[in-house]
């Protein structure tokens, strides 16, 4: 029953209410339809009209071509002893796109990162600014060892976009022996990058900075590959889509023999110690091929310091060391050759017809040219002699006269024929050219205005040039090639440090073959006179190099000592001790040049060093030449 009392609820079922569309409700419904239409309109624009360009953008987003750095080539000695190792290490890298998008957070993180990497914020910003590809982890600090990487790793979770990447750093096996020779690599600096960018270098790649690492850069570098990778939003690689594997750098087998190198090094160190000198250099070559089988410059430096990224303190210590350890004396040290130059003077005089094999010239204690008196090393008259005897006795006054007959320009021409005044084409940067001086040269280097008497060439300059003083300069490398040319009958060879080159798989790509710079334009008979003089010097009882016999040198060859004064003109000046040699006398296979800076007499100081490693050479010559 229906309770119809007032105030009670009454419900009536079964009536379907009529839809009451008020104006406002209808307006709302229309608005909803209108807004939906607007959304669809916008979507049609985005997905259809602009769709293709967004699809491209999406692709750019996800697929990136990431360069894969090729492993740097390994360097061996001629027997295959590894001289440098690609050691696995870590680099601290930044993937720009994965940094926090919020500006303040990003700045805070970069500041933390700079602290972690031990660089200033500005330095870090500059480093990051080099790269245009934000998707590739860009190394900001490299060469971290496992311990360092571990400590860095602990902080990474709070540094999104920062990662540790595998890298290889160069470890030089024996920096004492090969520091100068191999040099080092380092990160490209912004100046270098500008020029190297064209060759496909990456802004955080390492590049050879000095020594063979720089000289053989193109061989060692290899060709970088690439990968097209699918990345997620954090730059993490999800999948490799396509790749071009990198081609590792070439393996280079040096002409250097590790055993000989060590023997040269040890002998030089011992010789320097005995002479109380700090610096010296030796270069050993094969007169048949021009291959450099040993090359040492002392003092050296630890190139591993550079490979890891040298500290400011270490670098300034090396730079400010008065002994200049960074300076490779073997190729860049320019010294007067002293008496080792006399073979050039002698050859020139014979070839120019100023003297013959039989011409006897006096060898007094001194001679006057103009107003000046020029002394022999021996302060007594040694009697008249021919050129073949003037070499082993090293008579200065004999060569004063000969030089005076020749004049400086002719003498300089012959010096150039033997390699003076031109950079030897060795695979090392920074080789010195030496000087074959002429009057024009003196004028050019003269610090005073032209016309000043001091700038004019005088007879003193000519006569002292005959004994390798005056303005003559040479380097140990030039001297070694000069000794080789004397030994092999007048063929000046291009020095080379590369014996063989193979690809990463060990396939032989190229082998050293002798490159002749020139055949020195001297008659064989004339050259032979000088060679016999050098032979006498080494083997004759009165030769200046005769001390070799007492040092255990039993073989045959030719040599010349030199005691080159430096630091001005006059008497009782300090002198560099020189020794050049070739062996054996016929068809020599060994030639070398050695200098000990400011150490005194060539025969007493430099010769024992050279004889030391010559003895080693003879004891091991079959092994040395068996390589390759």
């Amino acid at each position, binding site marked *: 029953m*229906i309770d*119809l009392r007032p105030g009670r609820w009454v419900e009536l*079922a079964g009536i379907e*209410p009529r839809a009451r569309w008020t104006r406002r*409700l209808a307006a709302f419904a229309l608005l909803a339809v209108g807004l*939906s239409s607007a959304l669809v309109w916008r979507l049609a624009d985005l997905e259809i009209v602009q769709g293709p360009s967004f699809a491209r953008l999406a692709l750019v987003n996800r697929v990136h071509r990431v360069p894969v750095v090729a492993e740097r080539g390994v360097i061996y000695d001629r027997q295959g002893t590894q001289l440098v190792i690609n050691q696995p290490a870590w680099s601290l890298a930044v993937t720009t*796109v994965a940094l926090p998008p919020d500006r303040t957070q990003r700045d805070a993180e970069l500041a933390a990162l700079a602290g972690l990497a031990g660089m200033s914020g500005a330095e870090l910003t500059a480093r990051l600014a080099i790269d245009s590809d934000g998707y590739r982890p860009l190394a900001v600090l490299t060469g971290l060892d496992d311990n360092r990487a571990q400590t860095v790793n602990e902080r990474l979770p709070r540094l999104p976009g920062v990662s540790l990447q595998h890298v290889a750093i160069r470890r030089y096996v024996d920096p004492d022996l090969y520091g100068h020779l191999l040099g080092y690599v380092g990160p490209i600096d912004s100046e270098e990058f500008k020029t190297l960018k064209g060759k496909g270098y990456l802004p955080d790649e390492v590049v050879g900075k000095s020594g063979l690492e720089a000289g053989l850069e193109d061989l060692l570098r290899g060709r970088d590959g690439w990968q097209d990778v699918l990345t997620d939003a954090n730059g993490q690689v999800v999948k490799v889509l396509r790749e071009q594997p990198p081609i590792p750098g070439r393996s280079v087998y040096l002409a250097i023999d590790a055993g000989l190198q060590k023997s040269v090094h040890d002998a030089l160190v011992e010789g320097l110690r005995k002479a109380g000198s700090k610096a010296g250099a030796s270069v050993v070559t094969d007169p048949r091929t021009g291959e450099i089988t040993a090359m040492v410059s002392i003092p050296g430096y630890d190139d591993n310091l550079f490979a890891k990224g040298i500290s400011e303190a270490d670098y300034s210590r090396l730079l400010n060391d008065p002994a200049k350890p960074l300076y490779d004396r073997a190729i860049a040290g320019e010294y007067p050759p002293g008496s080792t130059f006399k073979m050039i003077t002698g050859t020139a005089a014979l070839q120019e017809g100023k003297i013959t094999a039989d011409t006897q010239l006096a060898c007094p204690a001194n001679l006057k040219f103009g107003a000046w008196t020029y002394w022999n090393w021996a302060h007594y008259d040694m009697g008249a002699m021919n050129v073949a005897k003037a070499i082993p006795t090293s008579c200065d006054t004999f060569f004063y006269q000969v030089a005076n007959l020749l004049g400086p320009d002719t003498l300089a021409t012959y010096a150039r024929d033997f390699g003076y005044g031109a950079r030897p084409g060795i695979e090392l940067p920074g080789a010195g050219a030496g000087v074959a001086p002429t009057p024009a040269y003196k004028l050019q280097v003269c610090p005073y205005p032209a016309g000043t008497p001091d700038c004019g060439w005088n007879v003193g300059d000519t006569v002292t040039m005959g004994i390798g003083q005056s303005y003559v300069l040479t380097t140990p490398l030039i001297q070694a090639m000069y000794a080789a040319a004397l030994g092999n009958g007048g063929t000046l060879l291009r020095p080379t440090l590369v014996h063989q080159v193979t690809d990463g798989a060990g396939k032989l790509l190229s082998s050293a073959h002798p490159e002749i710079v020139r055949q020195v334009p001297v008659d064989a008979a004339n050259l032979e006179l000088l060679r016999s003089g050098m032979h006498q010097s080494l083997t004759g009882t009165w030769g200046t190099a005769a001390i070799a016999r007492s040092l255990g040198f039993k073989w045959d060859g030719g040599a010349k000592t030199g005691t080159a004064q430096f630091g001005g003109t006059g008497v009782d000046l300090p002198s560099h001790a020189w020794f050049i040699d070739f062996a054996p006398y016929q068809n020599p296979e060994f030639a070398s040049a050695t200098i000990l800076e400011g150490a005194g007499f060539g025969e007493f100081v430099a010769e024992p060093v050279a004889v030391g490693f010559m003895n080693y050479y003879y004891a091991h010559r079959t092994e040395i030449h068996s390589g390759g």
Partner: protein
Amino acid sequence: MVRLGRLHLLDRLQLLLAGMLLVLGLMSVYSASPADFRKQLLSLLLGLAAYGVAARVDYRRLERFLLPAYGACLLLLLVVHFAGHSALGARRWISIGGFPLEPSELCKVVVLAALARHFAVRQGAERSLRTMFGAIALAVPPMILILLQPDLGTSMVFAAILAGMLFLGGSSRLHLAGLATLAVVAAPVVPHLLHGYQKQRLEIFLNPMSDPLGAGYNLLQARIAVGSGGLLGHGWLHGLQGSLGFVPERGTDFIFAVYAEQFGLLGCVVLIGLFTGLLLRLSWAASVAPDRFGYLLCAGVAVMVCFQVVENIGMNVGLTPIAGIPLPLISYGGSALVANLAALGAVQSVMLRRRLLVYRDVEALDRHLLSESGTVRLDPGLKHPVGAVASGDPWSA
């Protein structure tokens, strides 16, 4: 109890539209963040339960619980304010038995119902200023608490609900115009009240390319995802922008971008079509609601869903500024899903009872029968024909 005989009054079209949207939502959540799928499924079960309960309970009986519910909401928001979990720099969540709860989502529905009740109670005085200020006074406190979290997006939803209720509740045109003018005048002040990141979002909206790798990144990446969808999309689970993480907040705020990348324009038209259908159906529900409260309840739900859909999709395609608003029924997030389904359930509650005319007294019944007799018709499916009137409170029997 709803008698079985009444179940055919259920708005099956609404159920169908919402069901299809829920399926698309599950697919989107699965593709965007598979790890969250199970939780979302669980939330869906909870939401469906809420839907059922809301439909079964007589919406008119809600009236007496609204005040306590409103108070509880404010309390919850205060709890969040002082003890909530923060994420992304805002305190929005509290833990209820290990489950994260976002009270602001539930508050939306409660405030909506409270506003509906407010207008229903003040029937006849809709146009008065007092009604309007009463409504504002109801909506503003929770809005401010949510703004302080800070959650600009959800408080914007409150503002939209308030505006919609004022409009549909019958405030005078003059007052509405005045309020709108006030809003326009106050607009320039807003940037000064915004937090840093909110200001940045606004700037980025105005010029998205100003910082493509920074703050504009999200927007740009979302737009790239949408744009790369093309006509047909990449197919379900083949959207790379989404799965590789380029699209930010891809399970929640930017799930539409993930969806659009996979299903293309065609899929978007289907999705927006479903939403539009749902909105029209909710408007229709409002139009057939048997009383003022039911009408406002349905209309309010429609406004709430409409604003969220338009704002969310709008920001995904770069038409509206970014605000952290989930896409109803689609986005990952339990609280929002449960709240939205409860709101739709409440509309069903109105629908189930749309043929019940309740009168407080016989005179009202008389008036009705006189005025609307033309619309009264027989319903063959009903056990009680017209005129068979139950007394008392038939739903409690």
